[in-house]
């Protein structure tokens, strides 16, 4: 693909006090996409992110952000990016507006420019009404919105978000997703970490699955799912007819819409290209062989399946603890 590369990571490794956090990571992020780093806690996502935002020096390998090396040209990188750290990176005693004004000075914006952008961002994240209240009065979702406004203040080319919806209730999560999509429309490249599968699936254009410090899979959610070998049809065969399962399997083998067949104690599991073409053939063969089907289950692979297939285990922290 001829797309512009925004971030180029090559053979990146980071060792802390003798413990390897990430090793041999290589990937590229394209300009204008939402790129996700998906993995369980401790997989190395945040370490990777911190290297990219110049807060950690890599032990091995290198990374460039918009052509600038994150170690040698850290200052240049910092001028081009925005960063939204994990929840609560907020000073409870400052108001929302004061947070933004402080950051305006840290990005060396002139006062009037700073005020103009702040007004615009407060509108974008619907915080205008609460901008002059101390952040300790904010709900979790509002803090998150303020976080995002802070990340956007420098008008970044690339926005980095660390677990943007960790601990948020469902409505706030959906709203944050909407903001992130809006950023993409504005042409901002977004790099985010997450340990929520649904978030990675619905939000990210492409993602890297990271586990135990290594990339296990890389691609768009649909590519990753397709690569697993298509949709699955599970047939549960009546106990009396279990003897005929092998016959059924060999009858189905080689049919155009069917990719792979494996025998299960209760029946068959069939990988199919498309259920519309496969299902009639399966029913026809079963009828012809008088093999009674008790139950047919159709399963489209989800990102969970992709994750399990590549890491050998389910993603650990599952349910978000809503905090309000």
């Amino acid at each position, binding site marked *: 693909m001829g797309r512009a590369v925004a971030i180029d990571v090559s053979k990146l490794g980071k060792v802390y006090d003798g413990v390897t956090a990430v090793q041999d990571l290589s990937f590229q992020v394209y300009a204008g996409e939402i790129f996700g780093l998906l993995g369980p806690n401790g997989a190395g996502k945040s370490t990777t992110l911190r290297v990219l935002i110049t807060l950690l020096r890599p032990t091995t390998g290198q990374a460039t952000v918009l052509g600038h090396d994150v170690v040698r040209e850290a200052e240049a990188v910092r001028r081009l990016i925005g960063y939204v*750290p994990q929840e609560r990176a907020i000073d409870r005693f400052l108001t929302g507006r004061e947070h933004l004004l402080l950051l305006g000075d840290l990005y060396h914006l002139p006062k009037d420019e700073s005020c103009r952008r702040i007004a615009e961002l407060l509108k974008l994240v619907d915080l205008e009404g609460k901008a002059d209240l101390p952040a300790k009065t904010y709900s979790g979702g509002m803090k998150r919105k303020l976080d995002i406004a802070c990340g956007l203040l420098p008008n970044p080319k690339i926005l980095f978000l660390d677990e943007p919806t960790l601990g948020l209730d469902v409505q706030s999560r959906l709203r944050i997703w909407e903001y992130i999509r809006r950023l993409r429309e504005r042409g901002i490249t977004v790099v985010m970490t997450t340990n929520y599968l649904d978030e990675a699936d619905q939000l990210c254009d492409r993602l890297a699955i990271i586990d135990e410090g290594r990339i296990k899979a890389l691609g768009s959610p649909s590519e990753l799912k397709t690569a697993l070998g298509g949709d699955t049809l599970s047939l549960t065969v009546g106990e009396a007819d279990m003897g005929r399962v092998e016959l059924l399997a060999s009858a189905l083998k080689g049919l155009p819409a069917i990719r792979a067949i494996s025998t299960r104690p209760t029946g068959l599991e069939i990988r199919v290209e498309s259920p519309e073409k496969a299902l009639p053939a399966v029913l026809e063969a079963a009828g012809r062989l008088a093999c009674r089907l008790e139950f047919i289950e159709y399963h489209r692979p989800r990102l969970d399946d992709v994750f399990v297939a590549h890491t050998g285990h389910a993603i650990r922290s599952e349910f978000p603890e809503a905090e309000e």
Partner: protein
Amino acid sequence: MREYLQEISALTMRWVRRLSREKFSMLFTLVQPMLFWLIFFGNLFQRAADTQVVQAPTYISFLAAGVVVMTVLNNGLAGGVDLLFDKENGFLERLMSTPIHRTSVILSRFLFVMTITSLQVLVILGVAFLFGVRPATGFLGVAVILLIGLLFGVGLTAISMALAFSVKSHGDFFSVLGFLSLPMIFLSSALVPLSAMPAWMSLLARFNPMTWAIDAVRPLILSGWAAALGPVAMVVVIMVAFDALCLYGSAKAFRRAMG
């Protein structure tokens, strides 16, 4: 340079803003205890303390120097606390991800802590004044007292920040702090002159930079320039060495913490 000033003034104003919203806790945690030491302890021990031993007209006039330096000690050792919280909640990361000079956050903290400490020292000297303690060296002497406070405070704040950057949790930070501060006070000439201490304690107290600071501030309050100049010159030398050591250590801790 203009950018550097913009950063530092914005970061320093943040500390000021926080303070102005935390007036209550500020008043109770920092100002009050020191004033209590001066007012209650000073008056309580007025008759118990032998003016021959403390070599001062009143115990409170003897104690004033100790309370001044204790204020510097407490503020300095607590100087890293806010950075610790910033580190724990990710605010520090947010600050460091911006294109600011790497020293700006630390410098803003020094500026703030030193300013607050100086103001508190002035309050303490003012309260002591109400109890009849007239600094023998006048306004210039008060300025020298503030300078000694600054010199000692810089090193202490550096220790505190180094600790903040190195500890795993704030529980560790506060236990180290608690472990440090009381022995520093008792093993110094804050409450009792070295000559009145058991030999082993006075020996240990001599290795405490706080003792040197107090022994320079005390003659500035009690005696006059003739008695004060020697100890003041001495404490300046000691504090420069102390600060150099502390700043070196905290720079290392900071660099390690920042990857």
